[in-house]
């Protein structure tokens, strides 16, 4: 089987992809202006004729998550409000955002939009090496969140056999993977590690499960975490990025060097953090602004994701010509100043996953005491370690934190099972400082 899901679009020259995406953008612009109350209002004063060149796209204002919330609260038709781009009777499925940063956004999908989303996700899975001979186990709750519903339908579409792993606890899922000899997984990185930890507690080496490949979703996947999952299961691990509002829009190929934008499904802009007006250069950090170009049930134009990534080169060893994100740095909201030092929680995850296999779970809490910002690193270690050994791990983690972040922290070794476990988005970073 060939390397590409759609060789035609995946290998088009840059200028052709740009031309196609520009044309799709204009179509979406017109569609949104005529069919979505949000964009009827938002795009007043800008006409299609004003968008003559690719650069003119920048005349169109960004869409922010907060706006999506506002246009839904107490606005008819319930529950989608002014975001709906189709007749409400065409809505065939409901999804919602996780609500991590506030009131959830309710997302309408028509049969068409859902199939468009699935087609895009087929690229994600195919790029990650999922093939018809894979029996894919999906260990998630099959609920209102979009996570993994796309993986389910896309895996079916590319010809995999899908095992829905809902309504089971983690132990039940380990048993089901063994019983059915599942050989591929999709899950949050955190939960994939939890499954492995559960297997170990059952006396099972995760490598013996026979998992050949896995794809992460819902959380950042620093390289150290990716390597840890690969080492734990003896599998290949891949990453992708997306959100409920935008769909999954970029994914990792076999080279495992950054994420390819799924073009021409999505228009990517990577803009400088200060002015959000200039496209950054390869190797620089930029804010990801994304437009899903073919989704009509819920048109979203120039969505400012607040995610920061390093722009990658277009060329890749896999032969794809799509734009690339080399590394996801984190969310704009998560990158903050602590005691005057720029701090990203991802740095902590990196060194814990890379250098501390004894730490099975952790949490970072930043709080202000008097005028001082303090960081508390709470860790849980392998329960087989002695108290003294656990304290040593804590001491080393504190030292490493200072080296890697330039910030000292207190470390507290918690008893096993104290810290929360997550099967969707993990919330390991808690900034309690309010409006710092």
């Amino acid at each position: 089987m060939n390397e590409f899901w759609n060789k035609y679009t995946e290998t088009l020259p840059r200028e052709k992809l740009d031309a196609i995406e520009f044309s799709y953008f204009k179509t979406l612009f017109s569609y949104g202006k005529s069919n979505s109350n949000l964009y009827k209002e938002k795009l007043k004063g800008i006409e299609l004729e004003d968008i003559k060149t690719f650069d003119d796209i920048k005349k169109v204002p960004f869409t922010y998550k907060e706006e999506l919330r506002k246009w839904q609260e107490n606005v008819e038709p319930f529950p989608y409000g002014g975001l709906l781009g189709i007749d409400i009777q065409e809505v065939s499925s409901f999804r919602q955002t996780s609500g991590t940063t506030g009131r959830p956004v309710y997302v309408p999908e028509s049969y068409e939009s859902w199939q468009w989303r699935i087609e895009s996700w087929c690229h994600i899975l195919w790029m990650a090496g999922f093939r018809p001979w894979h029996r894919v186990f999906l260990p998630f709750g099959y609920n209102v969140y979009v996570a993994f519903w796309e993986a389910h339908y896309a895996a079916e579409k590319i010809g995999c056999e899908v095992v829905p792993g809902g309504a089971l606890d983690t132990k039940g899922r380990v048993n089901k993977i063994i019983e059915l000899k599942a050989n591929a997984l999709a899950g949050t990185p955190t939960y994939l590690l939890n499954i492995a930890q559960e297997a170990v507690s059952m006396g099972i080496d995760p490598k013996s499960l026979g998992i050949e490949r896995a794809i992460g979703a819902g959380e950042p996947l620093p390289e150290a975490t990716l390597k840890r999952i690969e080492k734990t299961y003896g599998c290949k691990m891949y990453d992708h990025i997306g959100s409920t509002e935008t769909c999954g829009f970029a994914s990792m190929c076999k080279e495992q060097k950054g994420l390819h934008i799924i073009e021409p499904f999505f228009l990517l802009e990577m803009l400088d953090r200060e002015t959000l007006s200039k496209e950054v250069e390869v190797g620089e950090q930029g804010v990801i602004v994304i437009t899903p170009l073919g989704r009509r049930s819920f048109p979203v134009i120039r969505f400012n994701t607040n995610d920061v990534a390093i722009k990658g080169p277009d060329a890749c060893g896999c032969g794809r010509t799509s734009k690339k994100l080399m590394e996801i740095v984190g969310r704009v909201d998560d990158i903050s100043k602590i005691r005057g030092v720029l701090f990203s929680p991802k740095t902590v995850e990196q060194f814990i996953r890379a250098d501390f296999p004894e730490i099975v779970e952790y949490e970072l809490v930043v709080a202000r005491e008097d005028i001082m910002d303090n960081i508390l690193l709470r860790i849980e270690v392998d329960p087989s370690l002695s108290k003294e050994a656990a304290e040593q791990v804590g001491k080393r983690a504190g030292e490493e934190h200072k080296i890697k972040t330039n910030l000292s922290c207190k470390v507290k070794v918690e008893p096993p099972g104290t810290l929360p476990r997550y099967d969707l988005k993990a919330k390991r970073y808690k900034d309690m400082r309010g409006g710092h």
Partner: protein
Amino acid sequence: MDEIRNEIMKIEESAEKLKSLAGDNNAIKKNASIILTFIYILKFITPAAD
């Protein structure tokens, strides 16, 4: 790709015709609509690059 695009157009015409012939037959109408959904996807993934 041109040949593929032509075939897609032909299927679209047939599906539209099927839909109009369906009358009050919900099953035929819905299945014709589903074909049109995939026509939308097929058109989207085979854009002319000229």
